[in-house]
């Protein structure tokens, strides 16, 4: 006999089987179900509990982390600014030294540039 199995028929079959089971078996099944549910709960809550347990002062840690990020950003900015200023200063110094040397060695007399 071929019968289509759907969730309704499965439920009926389980209910019938359930009714015919011994009370001790039913008790074991209930305990196993509860254990499975409990296990599922632990799995779901474990990361949150682990996080809370290992980071007692999460707020403080978060603020310190933010401060670190700001300080690092500031350091990068200072490095960039300092590098740019140094590069510009080198360029200016180089240009000035070239001009000064040219004035000091030019065949045009010095006072002609000063007047």
């Amino acid at each position: 006999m071929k019968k289509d199995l759907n969730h309704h028929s499965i439920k009926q079959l389980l209910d019938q089987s359930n009714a015919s089971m011994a009370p001790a078996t039913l008790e074991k099944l209930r305990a196993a179900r509860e254990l499975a549910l409990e296990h599922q709960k632990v799995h779901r809550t474990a990361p949150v509990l682990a996080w809370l347990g290992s980071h007692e002062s999460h707020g403080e840690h978060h603020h310190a982390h933010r401060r670190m990020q700001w300080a690092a950003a500031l350091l990068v900015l200072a490095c960039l600014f300092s590098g740019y200023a140094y590069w510009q200063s080198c360029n200016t110094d180089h240009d000035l030294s070239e001009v000064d040397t040219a004035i000091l060695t030019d065949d045009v007399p010095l006072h002609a540039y000063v007047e």
Partner: protein
Amino acid sequence: MRRLPRLLLVACLCLTPLGGAVAATTQNWATLTPMQREALAPLAQQWDGLSDLQKKRLLATTKHYPSLSPEKKQRYQTRLTEWSKLTPEQRDRARQKYKALRKAPPEKREEFKKRATQAAQTDNAASSPVATSK
């Protein structure tokens, strides 16, 4: 961990050009290299009395000194004393004038050179003992 941001901030301040300026050192005549002393020989007596900026600028020009021709080396040394006596404004004006002239067309530069040379010759003639005695 809590002190780290402060340490980073101090590092930032040290990296700023202000920090670099504070760390700048003064160069006395005794600390100059033989090449620098040779180039700046006419200023040996007054070197230590010059401002730090002036020393820095003059030392920068000595980098070009070894590659100059003997004639230009002599000209460089002859003009050093006069150059160092100028005010910072006069030196800036001279630089601006030189830069402007460098950009000018060759004929304009030649004309400027001619007039400047003639003016120098006139000045020399006027200040020479023969001219003054007349």
